[in-house]
Every structure is written in structure tokens, then in C-alpha cells.
């Protein structure tokens, strides 16, 4: 098996399933983490990820298909997605793509799911559609606060990794988001994002 990516959380290998290309994601033991804590986190996330990744399909969000799950080994075998990470696209394309990303995130929130790790490296653009991956930190939640945490993280990533195109990308994201959740809810979440930001260290409060 070929190692595709040594991610922060899991090792990702290229594998196969019934003759088709597949991705094997294994949450290996982390030696630096206390073993009790480590086991708890890895197991919990593997289960959550496989559940939610399948659940969101029913709302029309494109995600990889789960083929096989091994809870004890904390591994998930899933569909291989052929496409490009949004993070690695050119700036114009990312800017444009943010509208679609916003729409997808909106659909998730409307259906009571937060992704928990909305970075540009968790969206793959294929020839046909935008696919969302990595649901390790996802959660079922209707709380507006949690939804705002999702948005804030995405904004932070734009502000750091894609600083040159922050404004346009963020605007596009919000347009897409608003399209899915409605203007009223979108405004509410934007306000909450500002509240979270103001809680940050040395935010302009004095």
C-alpha cells in the first residue's frame, strides 16, 4: 500500500476494494498521547466520521462512500476521489470555489451537522463536483454557536493561508452560505463569529 498522506490525525493509504481504487484511512496510535486518552479519541472519531460522512449524503452533500470500517484498528476504507485539493488551486479558482464551499457548509448546518475542520485542504474539486472529506471532528449540533465556530475556522484559514484573496473569498463564501441557510440565519452566524473573535487574545477590546 502506498502512503498518500501522513496527516495530522491519520495516515492515508492508497488501497483497493473489489478492483476499485480506494483510500484507507488509519488513525494510528499516537505515542505522545496518554494511551487512555488516545484510544478514546481515535475510536470516537473513527465512528463519528464514518457515521456522519454517510449521513450527510442524504442532504445532497458529496462525500466519499464508506466501504469498510474497522473500529478496533480505527481504520476506514473509502472511495477514492479523483480531483484537486482546493488549497492547491490557483487563487482565482479558490476565490470562485468559495461560493460553492459556502453553499455546502450551509447545507450541513441547515441539517444540524458541523464539520469541525473546515480548511481548504478538506475540499476536493473533481470534474463534476465539490467533495467534502475528513469528518473526524464533525458533530451533530443545532447550536448556532457551533456553526459559527465552523465559519470562524474557515475565515482563519483564508486569513492565513490565502491572505491575498481573503476579502473576495470570504464574501463569496458568505454568499453561498446565505443561499443555503437564508439571509436571516447567515446574519446571525456572522454576528456570532464576531463574538468568538472578540473572545480571542488581544482582540480589540480596550
Amino acid at each position, binding site marked *: 500500500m502506498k502512503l498518500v*498522506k*501522513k*496527516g*495530522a*490525525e491519520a495516515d492515508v493509504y492508497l488501497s483497493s476494494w473489489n478492483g476499485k481504487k480506494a483510500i484507507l484511512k488509519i488513525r494510528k496510535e*499516537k*505515542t*505522545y*498521547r*496518554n494511551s*487512555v*486518552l*488516545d484510544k*478514546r*479519541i481515535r475510536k470516537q472519531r473513527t465512528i463519528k466520521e464514518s457515521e456522519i460522512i454517510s449521513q450527510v449524503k442524504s442532504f445532497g452533500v458529496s462525500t466519499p462512500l464508506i466501504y469498510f470500517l474497522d473500529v478496533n484498528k480505527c481504520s476506514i476504507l473509502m472511495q477514492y476521489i479523483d480531483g484537486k485539493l482546493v*488549497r492547491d488551486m490557483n487563487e482565482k479558482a479558490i476565490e470562485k470555489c468559495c461560493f460553492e464551499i459556502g453553499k455546502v457548509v450551509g447545507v450541513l448546518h441547515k441539517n444540524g451537522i458541523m464539520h*469541525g*475542520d*473546515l*480548511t481548504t*485542504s478538506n475540499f476536493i474539486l473533481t470534474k463534476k463536483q465539490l467533495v467534502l472529506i475528513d469528518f473526524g*471532528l464533525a458533530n451533530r449540533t443545532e447550536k448556532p454557536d457551533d456553526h459559527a*465556530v465552523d465559519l470562524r*475556522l474557515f475565515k*482563519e*484559514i483564508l*486569513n*492565513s*493561508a490565502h*491572505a*491575498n484573496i481573503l476579502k473576495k473569498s470570504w464574501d463569496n463564501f458568505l454568499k453561498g452560505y446565505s443561499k443555503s441557510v437564508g439571509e436571516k440565519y447567515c446574519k446571525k452566524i456572522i454576528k456570532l463569529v464576531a463574538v*468568538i473573535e472578540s*473572545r*480571542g*487574545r*488581544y*482582540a*480589540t*477590546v*480596550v
Partner: protein
Amino acid sequence: MLCLGIESTAHTFSCAVIEKKQKRGKILSDIRRIYKPPEGQGIHPREASRHHIENSSSILSECLDESKIKINDLDMIAYAGGPGLGPCLRVGAVVARSLSSYYKIPIYPVNHAIGHLDLGKLLTGAKNPLVLLVSGGHTMLLAFVSGRWRVFGETLDITLGQLLDQFGRSLGFASPCGRKIEELATKSSKYISLPYTVKGNDVSFSGLLSATKNISSQGFDSACFSLQETAFAMIAEATERALSFTNKKELMIVGGVAANKRLSSMLKDVCRRQSSKFFVVPLNYAGDCGSQIAWTGLLESQVKKGASMKDTFVKQSWRLDTVDIDY
């Protein structure tokens, strides 16, 4: 170039002299004194600033004596303009302004956090690192992108230093409590389950603080052990996420909590997994010191003239990701 750096953002008052030749900096002296609040209490800004006022002149003369220079030899003075506690910041600024105006030496207000980063790079030799800044004032993951230090992850509420201090104080320890907690933690290996909150590259410690206070009745040792294991694992995971996202091949850790051995051993492991090089600031310069201010001042002086007196501000809330860096 000879620069005097004055640090007074929180509990430390420090003066340092650095000599810069081309790209190299040499610390000639770095004298500090730390305000110690009574056991079980935090920094009282007024008391801390009083401590700074009372100690400022003796620290300054000690600093100059040790570096074997006279005030007139100085080419510039840098002071910490923020972020920090207002009353404390003002002491450093007043000392800097007085020297500057009396001896006609150019003056530079410097961002304290950026000082940590610049001094870290000078002392470790890291070239293009992802930086983990962990102290009483900061818990941030940073990388330098197009003219600014950008935040790739940070705490959404209190910092790692605050978490350790506030928990330590609830047990009646004297601030800063990091060392005491580290010591107690080594005496236990009983892990009590605590909330683990990682949100993407961000972390949140406030819930962990309350939960740890609640388990402290089950023994201080195991509470300290469980707190460290949980909090540091959160930091390690956020760091690993940011490393993986940015593809940086270097990790540098700076700030007061960098002195913790358990944290740095975890981060070393993270670096091994992500095949990145690991740099940690020498213990002596991990915490707040005048050198960090002097060195950033020297770097700034390459592209900027000294500030005029009316622009020698102090700013309590001065986020480092709002500072443009041209050097």
C-alpha cells in the same frame, strides 16, 4: 549597532543590550527581575507596576555594567509597546522615553510577541518555521506569509499559561505555577478523563480548567498529570494539524511554557511523525526578557527611523498579526 531593550509587559522587568553586526546578534547582557504575587493570587497590575518602578533603575545600571557600555554608547532603545498590562507597559515606556529624550537616542516601540519570534529565530537558527508561541499571554500557531506573521491556529479563550496558572492558584500555589504543576505531574501516572477540545487548528481551554478544578479533590498529583496530558495533547494535535496543512519543515517553540519538558517531548514526537525539524528556544530565553525587545528593535531599525516622542505608544491589545514586517 548597540540596542537597549526594555521589557515590562507583565510580571517581568528586564533590560538587555544586544550588539548587532550584519545579520548576527550578540547578547551582551540580559538582567531581569520577576514580580511574585502572594501564593494563590495572580498578577495585580498595580502591584506589578510598582515592582517594576522600584526595580527599574537598579536593573538598568546592572544591565549596562554587565555589558560594559555607557548609556551614550547606545545607538538605539527599544521598549515593549504591547500587548500586556497597561500599568506595567507604561513603566517600560517611561524609562525608554526618559533615556531617549535626555540622551538623544532613537526610540522604537516593539511588539512583545514578535520579539519572542525574532529572538527565537536568532537563537535557534530556524529559517522558515511554523511557530508555536505558548506563554501566559499567548497560545498561537504562526507562520510568516507575505509580510506578516499569520495565525494558523490559536486558543479561542484562555492561554495555556493561564490554564496552568489559574489551576495552580486554585490549589494555592504561587504564580507562575507551570514548574510546580510539572513537578507534581511526574509523581503520578493515573489518567482521569478530562474534556479534550480541538476545533480544527484551534483549541479551547476554559472547559478543561473547570473540569480539572473539579477533579483536584482526587489528588493533586493525578489532577496535574491529567491536566498536562490533556492540554498538551490538544496543543500537540493542533500543531500537527497546522504542520500538515502548511507543509512546513520546521517547528519552533517559544514562550514561557516552552520550558516544560513534557510538552517539548510531545512536540518532538509530532515533528518526527511529520518529518520536521524541531527547535526550542534555550530555556533562559524562553520567557519574557529584554533581549527579545532589543533584537526586534534592531531588526526594525534596518528599515525604519526611530519614533517621534508623540508616537511612543503603549497598547494593551496589540495583536501580532496586525503588524507589517518589512525587514
